[in-house]
C-alpha cells in the first residue's frame, strides 16, 4: 500500500501570469525526452494507420512461393514471413491491433480505477477498507496469469481483449487516485459545497476527480504503455487475436521458431516496434508528470 504513496505530493498552486495551461505546455515542451516520445508516437501512428494506404499489401492470403524472402527483395523492404506475407505491411496491420487494444484498454483501466479510487478515498471508513481489500486481492493475482485464464474461456477478439485488459489493470490507478481523494475530501471547497447541500456524487465527480486529474492523466499514459506490453505478452504466449489478424507480440511469437535459421526480420522489426511505442508512452508520461507537478519538479 505504501508503494506509490511516497511518490505523490500535493499539487502546488500554479499561479503565474501565463496561466496554468500554458505553463504546463511549456514545462512539457522543455522536457526533451517527452517531446521525443511525442514525435515517435506520432510517427508510429502515421506508420500504422496511414502506411497501409500507401504501401498496399495482402495480409489475408498466403503466398507460400514467396515465403521468408529476405529484406530488400523487390517490393518487400523488410522481406516476407513464413507464409509469404510482406513483413512491412504486417508490421503496420499488427501495430494497429497493438495500439488500438493498448490505448483503449489503458484508458478503460484508468477510467475504472479513477472512479473506484475516488469513491473509496472520498467515502473513507469501512467502505474504503472493503474497496481497497478488493484492490489488494486483484493486485495479488498477476494480470498476465488472469489474462491467460480468461483467454482460454473467451475467444480473444479485439473488443474482448480491450475489456479484459481494462478490467484487470485498473488497480494501480485506483490506489493512486484514492491517495489523492483522501486528502482532497477534507478540503474547504468540498466541505463548503456539502454545506450548501451538494451530494456525494457531485463531490466525487465535480471536485475530487477533477482535482486529481494530474495523477489520472500521468497514470493513463503509463497504463497504455503497460497495456501494450501486456497484449504483446499474451500474443507471444499464443493466446492473442486469431489469425489472419495479428499484433506485434504475435509476430514475434511466430518469429521465435526461426531463430536458428537466421530470419532476423521476423523478430527484430516487431520487437523494436514494441520497445519504441512503450518507450514513447513512458517518456510522454514522464513529461506530463513534470508538467502537472505530480512529483517534485526538477528531479
Amino acid at each position, binding site marked *: 500500500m505504501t508503494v506509490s504513496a511516497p511518490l505523490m505530493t500535493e499539487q502546488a498552486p500554479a499561479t503565474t501570469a501565463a496561466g496554468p495551461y500554458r505553463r504546463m505546455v511549456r514545462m512539457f515542451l522543455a522536457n526533451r525526452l517527452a517531446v521525443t516520445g511525442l514525435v515517435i508516437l506520432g510517427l508510429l501512428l502515421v506508420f500504422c494507420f496511414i502506411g497501409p494506404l500507401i504501401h498496399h499489401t495482402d495480409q489475408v492470403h498466403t503466398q507460400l512461393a514467396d515465403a521468408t524472402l529476405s529484406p530488400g527483395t523487390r517490393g518487400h523492404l523488410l522481406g516476407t514471413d513464413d507464409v509469404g506475407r510482406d513483413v512491412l505491411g504486417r508490421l503496420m496491420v499488427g501495430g494497429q491491433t497493438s495500439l488500438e487494444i493498448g490505448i483503449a484498454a489503458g484508458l478503460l483501466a484508468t477510467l475504472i480505477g479513477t472512479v473506484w479510487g475516488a469513491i473509496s478515498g472520498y467515502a473513507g471508513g469501512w467502505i474504503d477498507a472493503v474497496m481497497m481489500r478488493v484492490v489488494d*486481492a486483484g493486485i495479488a*493475482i*498477476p494480470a498476465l496469469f488472469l489474462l*491467460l485464464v480468461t483467454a*482460454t474461456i473467451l475467444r480473444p477478439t479485439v473488443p474482448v481483449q480491450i475489456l479484459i485488459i481494462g478490467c484487470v489493470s485498473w488497480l494501480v490507478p485506483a490506489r493512486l487516485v484514492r491517495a489523492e481523494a483522501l486528502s482532497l475530501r477534507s478540503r474547504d471547497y468540498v466541505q463548503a459545497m456539502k454545506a450548501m447541500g451538494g451530494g456525494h456524487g457531485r463531490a466525487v465527480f465535480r471536485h475530487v476527480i477533477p482535482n486529481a486529474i494530474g495523477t489520472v492523466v500521468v497514470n493513463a499514459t503509463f497504463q497504455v504503455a503497460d497495456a501494450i506490453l501486456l497484449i504483446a505478452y499474451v500474443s507471444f504466449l499464443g493466446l492473442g487475436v486469431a489469425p489472419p489478424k495479428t499484433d506485434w507480440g504475435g509476430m514475434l511469437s511466430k518469429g521465435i521458431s526461426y531463430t536458428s535459421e537466421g530470419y532476423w526480420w521476423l523478430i527484430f522489426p516487431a520487437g523494436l516496434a514494441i*520497445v519504441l511505442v512503450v*518507450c514513447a508512452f*513512458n517518456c510522454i508520461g514522464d513529461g506530463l508528470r513534470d508538467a502537472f507537478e505530480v512529483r517534485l519538479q526538477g*528531479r
Partner: protein
Amino acid sequence: MIRFLAKRLGQAIVVILLVTVIVFLLLHSVPGGPARGILGPQASPQAIAAFNHEHGFDKSLVQQYWAFLSRLLHGDLGDSYTLNQSVGSLIGQRLPKTLVLTGLSTLVALVIAIPLGVWQGRRRRGLTDYTVTTLVFVGYATPVFFLALILVIVFTEKIPILPPQAPQAQTLGALFADSRALILPVLAGAIATVAAFSRYMRSAVLDNLAEDYVRTARAKGASERRVVWLHIMRNSLTPIIAMLGYYLPVLFSGALVIESVFNYPGMGLLFWNAAQTSDYPILLGTVLVIALATVIGSLLADIVQALVDPRVRGSIR
C-alpha cells in the same frame, strides 16, 4: 507493533479470502464446468448431470464455495484434467524450480541495480545519468521475451557458448549441476528487472540526499564515500525491501514468459501448457498459489520494513 501486526494479518486473510472468491467464480465461468473438463466433450447430458450431482455441483453457489474452501484448507487443489495427477503435487514439484529461477535472477538484478542506482543518484543530471536513464527506459520497455530472444540469438547462434534450453532436470540438485544452462534464463530475468530496481534506488537516494542527517554527517567530516555508501545506501534500501514484496506478481509473470521461452520446467511452464490444453484446475491452482505468495510477500515486506526502519516503526504505533 502487536496491533499493527494483528491488523496487517487480518487484512491479509481478508485479501486471501477474496482471491479464493475470484478463483472460484472463474472456475465457474469455465464453459461446460468441471464435468466437461473431466468427462470430455463427448459426454451425454445425463452423464454430466450425474457427475454434477455426485460432486455437489448442483448445489447453490454459496454451498459450493464453502465446499471449495474447505477442500483448499485441507490442501486439496483438485486434479489435473490432462496430467492424471493432483494439482497440489504438480505445483509442489514445479514451485521450487520457479523459486530458484526468480530468486537467482532477483539476486543478480539487486547486485547490479543497487550500486547503479546509488551511482546514478550521485551524478544526477550529468551525461552518465542521462545515458543510464535512457538505457533504463529502453530496458523497461523491452518485453522479457524479446530480451530472451536476443540473448538466445547472441549467445547460442552468433557466439555459441551457451545452450539455448534450460536444464531439464527433475531435482533441484540436477538443476544446479547443469548450471551453464541456467545462465541465460537467470540473465534474462535479471536484466528485465534491473531497470525498475535501479530506478527505485535512484529516487530513494535522491530523497535521502536532501535529508538533514546527510548534512550532519558531512558537517562532522565524514568522508563522502562513507556518507554515500554507509548512510545513504542503508537508508535507501528500505523502499527497495518494501518494493520487493509488491514486485512478486511481476517476477512471477516474468518467470512465466522466461520458462516458456527456455523450456524451463517450472510453474510458469506448467501454467502455460495448461493454458494450451484448457486444464483449468492447474490454471486456477497456480493462480491461487501465486496470489498467496504475493500476499505473504507483501506482509513480510511490511513487517521487515517496520523492523528495520525506525521512522516506519514510529508511524505505525
